[in-house]
Every structure is written in structure tokens, then in C-alpha cells.
């Protein structure tokens, strides 16, 4: 919302610079988030008097003027400056605006269609004669249109006075400062210059000068000329109307146009400009109808029962849904109430009689209408926030008077003021000074708080004689936001100054044991672990297009069993790319990989923690119908980053399945998540993962998958992508809490190591073979079995492969013998032969 400094200070003038004034408003709750200067800069332009005019000896079209410019500080007038001038109207004795040497003017460029360019006035020689400055026309200064000659000022102009000051003294200041106020929705009272002035006056103790307006009496000639009926009093609690007749609707006077242009409004004609002026003066939206076009001399406020089409003032045909409040004449709608008037009754330059509407419309009804019409106007903005429910007559009378004054019309005596439910009861709110001090942490006296409340119009503080005590305060009608004690406490706080609320030396801490969710503490550890292992953390968009979401939804991934059924769609997203929520993290990681590949990165090692979403048939969810969980994604593609300069630095093979599985196992081991089951699966199970392992916890809860990303899903990427996506909550749950780990002293008796190489069918799963070894019954001394070699080829036979394990045997409390080891070793070999068709490699 734009507020003009000059306009504002018509009502409250605390004598502050614009910057200090902005600071005061900001710290008082009306945040000024921009300060803009309007109008030309007249810095350096002063009033001079032409003392002498003589012809230029060497130029017919120029004269030389001696111009007195006053004094520059030493108390005696300076020598007059010699200035060459080509204007036809220059004459001795004139007071004129002079741009002194060094002044920068935005001069119209004759060759460039009058576009203005900065020019610095310098002392020059013109055909052998000095010229020290420039006598300016109104057009050159940007303060008027007249370019035919120099601007001649009034004779009482003070020589040496800055021109800006001279103009301001005459109510025609060409410069203004405009504040852009970021008005919060709770402050409709401040949506006008008077409203802001009220706060400014309260914050600075400056007096508030509200224009005096003589309020008309209800009835009279006006009531005979026009009738108003309110059919829907809930939507339109009040409708006041005034008539001005016999106007000549030309341009508004310059001062009025200047007020409007300063705040960014386009002047139209005197009547419209006057109603706009009053709207921005006091916050009450007004509408002016051409009374000749109000059929039947009747106004009816009624709620539409069907769709209504009306061409609004902006020339657009608009259709409002049933339920919209309409302003109608005897035959047809003439306005969408509170939003915009109709073209059919618009005021034009030919208008002679004007009907001024000043109403109170219910905020929620205007809001719904404005939304349905897709139209937000200065009027709807104020109505939906709630205008002063008692300010209608003042505003109408102010506008009528102004219109009459500037158009030569006459205000018709009397007033129509329909208010079916009568004036509203004044709202009373209990206020307890002790409570205010307790909430704010202040130590203000009751009388000081009373003074602060009074400064913004909160009056009538009667003591309440009940247990709670306190005072009963009467809230002014222009403050619909003040409904509870806390609202008054805020008024006290902001008027006293938030910066004056003391910061206590101690802040209390409730006696509660501090807790941290494991999902959080472990997440931090795993992030560090993965970054330490060479992965980069990414943050991808939760949103994607619907087809992509559909594609990545597929694959039951252990989720189907939970009733997680479909993609989550957003309603009315502003772009297709935001039409759905990610069902898993993988698509975001693939996007990040593509982006980086396109920017020359080959090594792609990413991880991300994030929420994923699905529709769900379960009703017990936090939000019924939706399933959401946090996932951990790891995705690898492309060659490993070269880290060293010699062979021992490791190879740079492209990431493969075992790299991804290795990262997962690294995480599981770090978390102490023992007993995680890994079930191989092939292409059928998940269209996004060509093959991989399905993980579940020792307790059987689905944990996620690790595998090779389907090539179509990874389209556009040069190297295969391997990824794991795990349910973070389940994994954190499966982690063995460190504090529950118990120390087991190392065994003191020596261990015996044996290598076991067996030849098994090529299709035998190494994991299953290893499990047989590890779980072998009858081999209680076996402590560890580590697979250290896999070999297929010469010497092991076709269709066979060799698996080599390092076995470690050890007893708890004694030294074991070679014989004992032999017995267990043979038992393992025979179990492997039975279960895996294994034979010892010779």
C-alpha cells in the first residue's frame, strides 16, 4: 500500500524526516518496506530576481540577464549572476527559477521525443559572454507543461529560496516521498492516509488533524429522490447514499491529481478522482453512479440466486456465481458489491448528477466475490479486511462536499442511510494490566497503559468487579481486529515500543529430561558417514509431473501391503511440474545426475534424506488417505573419482551393484542393524529396478531395495545407475542403540584359522553358501567365516565355481586342538555337500 508523505502529514506532522518517519511507523507495526521519491529533483534550483536585461552583443536570440540569487552565507547579497536567456517572456523585475551552476536537471531532449536526460548546468561562454546558470521553464523543471517561456514566479517570492520550498509553501510541492507499507491483514484501519496518520500521531504524540465534515441528516430531499432497499442485511449491513447535482465533470484540480499520481493512481475525472481521494484518505471505499442511469431511482442490495453477468468499469464482461452480493437499480445489476461497479452506470464527463454509495459489506462475502471474479481492487481489499462500520456517512459527506466544490455542483440536502440492524453495539474487551505485564515481561503502570490505549481510540475503561478484575475497554469501530485481551496487550506493546520490552537476565528452562528422536541423531551420523565415504548430499524437489510420479510409483517395494495405492496429486498447481508428489526419492536423484552429466560431471555419488508420499487406503494415518515416510536414498553412477597418482589408489571402475550394496552394508554395520534380510529379485517385481535385493529387518519389516536402476528409468545417463532407497524410520528403529551394547572381553585363547575352498554349481548363491557355513550345526567353535575369493574357469569344471572362505575357530576358555578343528571343518564340508552340491576344491 502506498502512502504519500505530503498527504500523510496533512493529518499528522510530527516534524520527522521521511526516513525517521518510516522508521517510526515500522517499529510501530506498519512496516515501511520501501521509500520512493517522486517528482523532479529541484535540488540547486532557487528563486532569483531578474535585475537587468540587456541584449547579447553577438547573438540576436539571446539576452543577458543579471539575476540576484540572494546570499550564500556571509550575510550580504552576492553579486548578481550573469545568465544568458533565450526565452521571449523574460523581463526585468521578474522572480524566476534559476538552476545554479552545478545543478543536475532532467532536461527534455528535443531530438529524442522529449525523453528526459540528466544535464549538469555549468558556467559557460556563449559567444564571448559568460553565463552562470539557467533560467528555467516549467517544462524544463518538470513541474508543469508550459514550455513557451520561463516560469515566472509570484512577486513575493523570497530571493535565494529553494524552488521546492517556494512551491511547497503554495501547496504545489512537485516532490513527494512515497512509503510502501506492507500492511498486515489485521490492520484495515491503517489502509488509508488518515489511518496511518492516527498511528503516527499516537506514536509521536503529534496531534491528529481530521478534516471537519458537516454530517447530513437522514431523510430530506435525498431520501425523496432515491430509495435504497437492503434485501440481504447479513451481506450488506449498511448502505448510505448521497446525491450531488448539477456538476460539470472535467479534470480534477492539480493538487488532487497530484495526490493520486503520487500513490500510483491514474487521474480520470473530477468525480472519480474525488471518490478515490476519499477512499485513500479515510479507507472507506465509495462508488459514484451516474444517477441518470440508475433506473427507477432505486438501489437494491441483493444476493444473486443465479450466475450474473455484468460488464465492469474496466470494460470486461464478468460472471459472478450465485451468492454474490449485487447492487441493482430497479431493473438490473449496476455493481458487484464491494468489488467493482458496472459500466452501465459509470460516471462520465457528461454526467450531471452523481449518486455516491458508501456502504459496509460483510468481509467474507466480498472476499468470496473477489476470488470468484478473480479481481482484487482497492475497494475489495479494504472491504474484505473490514472497514470502519461507522465511517460511511462521514466518507460520503466528505466526497459529496469535495465533488461539489471542484465541479460546481450542489450537494442535495439530506441522506439515505439504510441500516436494518441499527448501529452496532460497541465492542467491549476486558483488559487486565497485570496480565499485560505478565505476558509482555514489562512493569508498566495501569495509567500508562491506559494512556497508550487512549492514544489509538480505545476508551471507556470501566473497572470490572468480578474475580478476574481488570477494565472493560470500548474498542473503536475502525478496529475490527481487537476482540480479545491479547489484542489490547499487543496495542500496549507496540505503542510502548517492542524495543523497550526488557530482555531478562535469566530465561527459564522447564524441568524435563531432554530427548532426541533416534531418526534425528542417527540421521546426522549417517550423513557424516556417507559424506566421509565420498557421497554428496543432495536436496531435490518433492514435486514432479504426474506421469513421472506414476512411473516411479510402480513397483510394490513392500509398500503395496500397506495399502499404499496411488500418486498424490496437487489440486490447481501453477505448473504441470508441480502436479504430483514424489512417491520415492529416485526420480529426483536421476534428475540431479542428468543435470550434472550435462555439465561435464562423470562421477555421480549422491545421497538424500527426504519425505515420499502415496495415497493410502488406510484411515489410521496422520492424515487419512495419505501415507508419508522419510526415505534415505543412495545413488551411484559412473567411474569413481580418481583420488591418487599411483596404482595403489584403487581402480576407477564404473559404479556397479556391489558398490551400492557396499554403501548399504556400510550404513547397516555403522548403525549396528544386525540380521537384515536381503532377498534377490529380478525385473518383474519393480519396473524401476532391473534387479536387486529387497531388504527387510530381522523382525520382517520391509526396509527397501538396493539394485540396478532400470535403463528406461535412467534414460539419458551414460553409465548404469545403482541405487538404494530405504525407509529411514524402520532402519533407525532396527539400529542397535549404542548404549545397549555390552562389552565382551576378547578371548584370551588362541584361534585356529583354516581356508575352505569349495566348488559349487555356478547358480549357487554365495550368500546361501556362507549362511550354511556360519550357521553350521555341530561347529560351535567356528567364530567367523569370511568369503575371500570367487573363481570360475579352468580347474573347477564347466558350470561350477569355487568359493573360498577363511574360517576362524576359537573356544572361550581353553586352547583348542587341531583335531577338534578337523572334526568341525569336515562337518561343514559335509553340510555344504548336502545342501549345495559342494565338493572340496582339490
Amino acid at each position, binding site marked *: 500500500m502506498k502512502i504519500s508523505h505530503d498527504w500523510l502529514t496533512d493529518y499528522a506532522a510530527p516534524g520527522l524526516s521521511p526516513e525517521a518517519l518510516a522508521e517510526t511507523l515500522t517499529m510501530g507495526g506498519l512496516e515501511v518496506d520501501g521509500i520512493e521519491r517522486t517528482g523532479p529533483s529541484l535540488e540547486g534550483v532557487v528563486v532569483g530576481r531578474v535585475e537587468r536585461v540587456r541584449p547579447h552583443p553577438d547573438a540576436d536570440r539571446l539576452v543577458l540577464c543579471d539575476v540576484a540569487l540572494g546570499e550564500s552565507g556571509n550575510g550580504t547579497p552576492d553579486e548578481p549572476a550573469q545568465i544568458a536567456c533565450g526565452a521571449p517572456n523574460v523581463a526585468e523585475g521578474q522572480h524566476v527559477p534559476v538552476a545554479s551552476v552545478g545543478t543536475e536537471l532532467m532536461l527534455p531532449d528535443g531530438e529524442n521525443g522529449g525523453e528526459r536526460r540528466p544535464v549538469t548546468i555549468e558556467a559557460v561562454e556563449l559567444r564571448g559572454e559568460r553565463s552562470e546558470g539557467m533560467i528555467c521553464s516549467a517544462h524544463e523543471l518538470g513541474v508543469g507543461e508550459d514550455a513557451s517561456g520561463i516560469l515566472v514566479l509570484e512577486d513575493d517570492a523570497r530571493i535565494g529560496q529553494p524552488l521546492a520550498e517556494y512551491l511547497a509553501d503554495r501547496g504545489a510541492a512537485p516532490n513527494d516521498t512515497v512509503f510502501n507499507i506492507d500492511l498486515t491483514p489485521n490492520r484495515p484501519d491503517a489502509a488509508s492516509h488518515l489511518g496511518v496518520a492516527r498511528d503516527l500521531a499516537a506514536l509521536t504524540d503529534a496531534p491528529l488533524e481530521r478534516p471537519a465534515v458537516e454530517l447530513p441528516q437522514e431523510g430530506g430531499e435525498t431520501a425523496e429522490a432515491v430509495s435504497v432497499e437492503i434485501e440481504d442485511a447479513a451481506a450488506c449491513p449498511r448502505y448510505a447514499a448521497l446525491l450531488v447535482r448539477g456538476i460539470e465533470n472535467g479534470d480534477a484540480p492539480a493538487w488532487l491529481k497530484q495526490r493520486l499520481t503520487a500513490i500510483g493512481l491514474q487521474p480520470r475525472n473530477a468525480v472519480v478522482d474525488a471518490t478515490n481521494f476519499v477512499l485513500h484518505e479515510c479507507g472507506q471505499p465509495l462508488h459514484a453512479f451516474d444517477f441518470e442511469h440508475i433506473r427507477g431511482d432505486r438501489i437494491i442490495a441483493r444476493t444473486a440466486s443465479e450466475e450474473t453477468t455484468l460488464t465492469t468499469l474496466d470494460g470486461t464482461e464478468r460472471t459472478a456465481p450465485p451468492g454474490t452480493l449485487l447492487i441493482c437499480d430497479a431493473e438490473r445489476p449496476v455493481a458487484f458489491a464491494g468489488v467493482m461497479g458496472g459500466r452501465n452506470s459509470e460516471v462520465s464527463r457528461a454526467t450531471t448528477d452523481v449518486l455516491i454509495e458508501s456502504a459496509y459489506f460483510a468481509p467474507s462475502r466480498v472476499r468470496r466475490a473477489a476470488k470468484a471474479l478473480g479481481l482484487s481492487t482497492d475497494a475489495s481489499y479494504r472491504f474484505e479486511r473490514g472497514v470502519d462500520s461507522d465511517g460511511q456517512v462521514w466518507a460520503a459527506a466528505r466526497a459529496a462536499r469535495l465533488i461539489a466544490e471542484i465541479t460546481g455542483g450542489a450537494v442535495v440536502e439530506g441522506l439515505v442511510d439504510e441500516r436494518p440492524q441499527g448501529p452496532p453495539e460497541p465492542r467491549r474487551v476486558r483488559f487486565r494490566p497485570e496480565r499485560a505485564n505478565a505476558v509482555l515481561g514489562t512493569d508498566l503502570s495501569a495509567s500508562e497503559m491506559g494512556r497508550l490505549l487512549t492514544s489509538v481510540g480505545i476508551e471507556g475503561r470501566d473497572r470490572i468487579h468480578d474475580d478476574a478484575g481488570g477494565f472493560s475497554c470500548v474498542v473503536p469501530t475502525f478496529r475490527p481486529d481487537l476482540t480479545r485481551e491479547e489484542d489490547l496487550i499487543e496495542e500496549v506493546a507496540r505503542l510502548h515500543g517492542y524495543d523497550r520490552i526488557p530482555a*531478562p537476565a535469566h*530465561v527459564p528452562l522447564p524441568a524435563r529430561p531432554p530427548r532426541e528422536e533416534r531418526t534425528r541423531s542417527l540421521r546426522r551420523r549417517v550423513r557424516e558417514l556417507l559424506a566421509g565415504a565420498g557421497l554428496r548430499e543432495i536436496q531435490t524437489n518433492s514435486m514432479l509431473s504426474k506421469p513421472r510420479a506414476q512411473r516411479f510409483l510402480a513397483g510394490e517395494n513392500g509398500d503395496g501391503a500397506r495399502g499404499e495405492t496411488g500418486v498424490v496429486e*496437487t489440486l490447481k498447481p501453477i505448473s504441470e511440474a*508441480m502436479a504430483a508428489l514424489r512417491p520415492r526419492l529416485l526420480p529426483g536423484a536421476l534428475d540431479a545426475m542428468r543435470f550434472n552429466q550435462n555439465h561435464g560431471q562423470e*562421477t555421480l555419488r549422491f545421497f538424500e534424506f527426504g519425505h515420499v508420499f502415496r495415497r493410502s487406503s488406510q484411515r489410521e494415518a496422520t492424515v487419512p488417505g495419505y501415507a508419508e515416510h522419510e526415505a534415505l536414498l543412495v545413488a551411484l553412477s559412473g567411474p569413481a573419482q580418481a583420488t591418487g597418482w599411483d596404482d595403489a589408489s584403487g581402480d576407477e571402475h564404473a559404479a556397479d551393484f556391489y558398490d551400492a550394496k557396499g554403501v548399504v552394508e556400510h550404513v547397516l554395520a555403522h548403525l549396528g542393524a544386525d540380521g537384515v534380510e536381503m532377498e534377490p529379485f529380478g525385473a518383474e517385481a519393480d519396473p524401476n529396478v532391473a534387479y536387486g535385493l529387497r531388504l527387510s529387518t530381522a523382525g520382517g519389516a520391509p526396509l527397501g531395495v538396493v539394485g540396478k536402476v532400470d535403463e528406461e528409468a535412467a534414460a539419458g545417463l551414460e553409465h548404469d545407475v545403482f541405487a538404494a532407497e530405504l525407509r529411514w524410520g524402520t532402519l533407525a528403529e532396527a539400529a542397535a542403540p549404542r548404549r545397549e551394547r555390552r562389552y565382551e572381553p576378547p578371548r584370551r585363547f588362541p584361534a585356529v584359522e583354516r581356508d575352505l575352498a569349495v566348488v559349487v554349481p555356478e547358480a549357487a548363491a554365495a550368500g546361501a553358501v556362507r549362511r550354511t557355513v556360519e550357521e553350521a550345526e555341530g561347529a560351535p567353535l567356528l567364530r567367523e567365516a569370511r568369503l575371500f575369493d570367487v573363481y570360475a574357469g579352468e580347474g573347477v569344471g564347466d558350470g561350477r565355481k569355487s568359493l573360498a572362505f577363511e574360517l576362524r575357530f576359537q573356544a572361550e576358555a581353553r586352547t583348542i586342538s587341531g583335531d577338534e578343528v578337523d572334526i568341525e571343518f569336515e562337518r561343514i564340508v559335509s553340510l555344504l555337500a548336502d545342501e549345495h552340491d559342494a565338493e572340496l576344491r582339490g
Partner: protein
Amino acid sequence: MPEAPDAVETLRREIEAETIESEEEAEAFRIAYLGRKRGKIGALFDRIPDLDPEARPAFGKAVNALQDDAQAKLEAARERLADEEGDALPELDLTLPGRPPAPAGSLHPLVETLDEVSGIFERFGFSVAEGPEIEDDWHNFGALNFPPDHPARDMQDTFFLEKHENDESDERLDVVLRTHTSPMQIRVMEEGEPPFRVVVPGRVYRNEALSYKSYCLFYQVEGLYVDEGVSMGHLKQTLALFARSFFGDDVRTRFRPSYFPFTEPSAEMDVWWETADGAGQWMEILGCGMVHPNVLEHAGVDPEQYTGYAFGMGIDRVTMLRHDITDIRTLYENDVRFLRQF
């Protein structure tokens, strides 16, 4: 035998001509010139008694100076030798780079900032709660004192989701992507008894066009403290201390009135942010206030007995500020050339 003064000069020249290239030569030099018994300088001292009494002081002084110079030459040589000895290098080229245990990884600056902010409040005794990103209207708006059809709802461009089929009638069950982390205020209060002292880090959503300054989602940290006797002074102090911890001890903050439906009084905190060219401006970094009594009532907490404060801070913005990032989309693009800088 030369005259005594000449002898000093001769010896000086001799000493100056000596070179000391090893520890052995150094020792030989010491014995030859500075040795107590047979040193050549000592021998000059021995000649003093033979001189004229007037000549003795000048001669003694000259010999002393020579002794100091010889001593200095010896020490300088030994120091140089000790340095040179240290330079005896093994066969390895020690200047080759080390072999890292793994290639460099990185942590995302947004998550790091989110953790840092939450961490500071954890040290102030706040617990951490995390909540769902899909919320119902009641927790995101209604319980937080956003009336239906109220302009306050325009402050947040909301993503709506399809309502669960059976709940068409109940407006409270409209489904949204949370527009702030504040719904967790309600969930936390619904699930326990006061006091509550908790921060909520998390992702929130706004249905806005993407540009350098707005993205469809961002991170917030919400804070809530409800207890007996909590005041706005406590809020101010806690946030001022937070700012000093996060931005540095010399940070300037200001606290000014604002509006949020769920707090009353409401405030915003600005920090004075200086740019490289020395210019500065107030930057709004968080919104806060005393928990609105309607909110406490909605969550089943008696507002007469308990008061509380709440605050919410955008994480993307401070991350951008502190790292000189000017386009918010950079944070979600995952360019390795960006990631590797953190």
C-alpha cells in the same frame, strides 16, 4: 712478532678467511681461535701485560671485539649446519599428495544450516520434533486461528490435495501441503501436557511461480515454548541470544510488531546485514510472538494458566545470506560444482 695492534688485525683477517663446512671444521675453528689453552685469541690476551699501560685498554677492547666476532661466526656456522642437516631427505617424494581414504563427499548447506539452527535451540533446552508434510486444514490453518474466508490465508499460497473420499463434509479435513512448520505446535500440544519446549525443523510448501527468490518449497525451523510465566521478554532474549550464537556476537537485531494469526502480540526479528561494499540493511529473518490464546484453547491448553511463545524462521534465506547465494533455485539444483564447495 708483529706489533700488538697489527697482530689483532692479522688475526681478524685470518678468522674472516676461515670457512666452516662441517661440524668437525667448526670444532677445529673453536679450538684454534677460541680454545682456552692454546687458542690464538687467548694468546693475544696473554700479551697485554707486555704492552704500555696506556695502550692496554685499547688493545684489550680490540681483542674482546675480535673474540665476540669469532664466537658469532662459529654460532652462525653451527646454526646453518644444523639446518642443513635437517634437509637430508629420504628417497620418498614427500611432496606428492596423500592418498585419501575415500574421495571427497559433501553435506548440503541447507541441511547443515537447518541442523545448526535446531542445534542452537537444542542447547537452549529445546527438544526436536519432526512432523508430516501433508497436513489437514485444521492443523495447518484452523487450529492456528486462521478463520475460513480470511485474508490471512492469502499470506500463504497453499497447495491443496484431494480430500480423503469419506470426509467431504468436514472442512477441517481439507488436505494441504503444510505451508509452515507451525502445525506441529498443535500436534505437540495435543499429544502431551505442558510445559512444551520444542523446535520443529522441516520442509514446507508454497504454490508460487519459481524464480530466483521463490521456490515451491523451502525449509523452516519452528519453535514453541509453553509454560507458566513465559513472557515476551523471554522470547526476545532467547531470540537475541540465538542471533548472537548464529550470526556472531556483534550482530545487531531489532524486534518490531507484525501479524500472524497464531500469535498475539506478534513480532518479526530483523538483523542488520552488511554487504561487501559496506552498505547495510535490515533483513527480516524470523516471525514470532506470544502464542494466541485461541491456539492454546484449540490444543486443549488453558491460556489463563499457561502462556507461551512461538517463532518460525526460514532456513533457505539465511543459508543464502551467509553463503552469498543469490538464486534460491541453486539450492535445489544439486550442481556438483555447487555441492563440492560445502
